[in-house]
């Protein structure tokens, strides 16, 4: 890890991608993530990489498909409406088992929505997003540093499982500046080989990358193989942080919302309330194991999101009726305040004792 430098979230993620071996970036502009393509357009040529501003989001994600198929570490980034446009390509990548990283700096939706921070693309990111029976690995980092850290992990897991990986940030994370330590750049030559890639068939049988399975039996078999891979990911790749695990009550939040909740929790604890936090870092696989560690002692959970309630479904599935699960959220680009969250914590605790 290098010296700490002050960087904007978008730029830090872009630099982290370059250091993780990303050599191809394809994108189309949209606020609030434009510093990612801007940075890549300058930085990638310095390391022998390629930046292309595509003519559309569809073109960009299909260029990622192509570069990934040829064995490269490739990525694209966008924000909510743009990521909706990329879903067809992400589904094709999942089906063709191609690695790649998609950054979504989420903004208020639906439709064109606004440009302020939101978390209302949680369903889209964690349920696959496009058509078909597939999932993408999804990270929800809470700080710029964690964004940098999960970027390396995202490329690593994308290659390991040959699957697209989504980093779900929000406008606040993209726009804010924080100190970060950047990792040393990976040496491309040391990355694992990709014998499946279409690198020219000289001296071997051609590799074919495809997502068409007209024979239903074959298509089901392919789906079952994908599912087996997702089962392994679910069993092995969960990431979460638990703060104050011996608490009676828990707030559940991810990304920048978790930072606001952390302040509310500090205030609640200063008042003598026994409140901790479960903070998912992987949103898919959802970190059910972290919930298992606290659910037996928990009197209740409060899920806080910048949406009208999406991750709360996964919390309810993880808790499975063992204690009450409440929800508080702001949406459309509005950010919950620590005062609002504290009031909800107080309501939860009082509701229990009444």
């Amino acid at each position, binding site marked *: 890890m290098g010296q700490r430098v*002050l960087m904007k979230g978008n730029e830090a993620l872009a630099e982290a991608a370059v250091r993780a071996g990303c050599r191809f970036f394809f994108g189309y502009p949209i606020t609030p993530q434009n510093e990612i393509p801007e940075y890549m357009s300058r930085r990638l040529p310095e390391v022998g990489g390629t930046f292309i501003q595509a003519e559309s989001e569809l073109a960009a994600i299909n260029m990622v498909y192509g570069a990934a198929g040829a064995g490269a570490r490739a990525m694209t980034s966008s924000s909510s409406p743009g990521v909706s446009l990329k879903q067809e390509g992400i589904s094709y990548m999942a089906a063709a088992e191609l690695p790649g990283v998609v950054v979504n700096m989420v903004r208020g939706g639906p439709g064109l929505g606004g*440009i302020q921070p939101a978390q209302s693309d949680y369903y889209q990111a964690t349920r696959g997003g496009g058509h078909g029976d597939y999932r993408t690995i999804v990270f929800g980092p809470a*700080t710029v540093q964690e964004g940098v850290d999960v970027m390396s992990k995202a490329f690593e897991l994308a290659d390991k499982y040959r699957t697209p990986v989504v980093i779900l940030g929000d406008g*606040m994370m993209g726009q804010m*500046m924080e*100190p970060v330590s950047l990792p040393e750049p990976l040496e491309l030559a040391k990355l694992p080989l990709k014998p499946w890639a279409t690198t020219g068939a000289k001296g071997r049988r051609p590799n074919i990358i495809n997502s068409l399975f007209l024979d239903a039996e074959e298509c089901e078999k392919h789906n079952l193989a994908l599912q087996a891979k997702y089962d392994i990911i679910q069993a092995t790749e969960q990431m979460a942080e638990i703060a104050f695990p011996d608490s009676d009550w828990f707030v559940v939040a991810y990304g920048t919302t978790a*930072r606001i909740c952390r302040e509310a929790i500090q205030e609640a604890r200063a008042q003598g309330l026994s409140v901790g936090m479960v903070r998912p870092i992987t949103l898919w696989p959802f970190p059910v194991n972290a919930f298992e560690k606290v659910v037996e002692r928990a009197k209740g959970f409060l899920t806080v999101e910048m949406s009208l309630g999406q991750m709360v479904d996964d919390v309810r599935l993880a808790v499975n009726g063992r204690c009450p699960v409440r929800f508080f959220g702001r949406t459309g680009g509005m950010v919950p305040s620590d005062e609002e969250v504290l009031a909800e914590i107080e309501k939860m605790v009082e509701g229990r004792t009444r």
Partner: protein
Amino acid sequence: MNLGVIMAGFGGQGVMSMGQVVCYAGLAEGKEVSWLPSYGPEMRGGTANCAVVVSDAPVGSPLVARPDAVIIMNRPSLEKFEAALKPGGLLVINSSLCDKEPSRRDVRVVKVAATDLANDLGDIRVANMVALGAFLAACPVVKPDSIVDALKKNLPPHHQKLIPLNKLALERGAEAAAGQL
């Protein structure tokens, strides 16, 4: 120490860079910092603001809903942010472009004619550094020397010649604040 500051003014007054330079200085002093800009459809002449946190511990929320200090570079910013300031907080007002009196009586007020003093120095663009000098005199969250070092480190080569002027602007701001502390 955990200090949340909002800096607000017209686009082009340098409120964004004022916030960034405080963060660079804080980082160099080994503190934890965050900078969050307003990023609506802003333009030159529109309103702009940023939220800065300087802390001894890792920064929680980068959003500053209840600031400990507010630096007001124009009148609309006073109307927008005065109410949010914590009781006992610090209100630094650029009196050159804000003729309105603050209505709060439970806060510390430091008035500095930042735009006029910058004009006297020969460059209106250092009004932000005059205001910052006044702010740091009233609230020494980082050392003025660290601000100058941060400018040296982060200004592009063709702007390095502006550092003495910025240093002077910081000093003028501190002098203007001195009588009000």
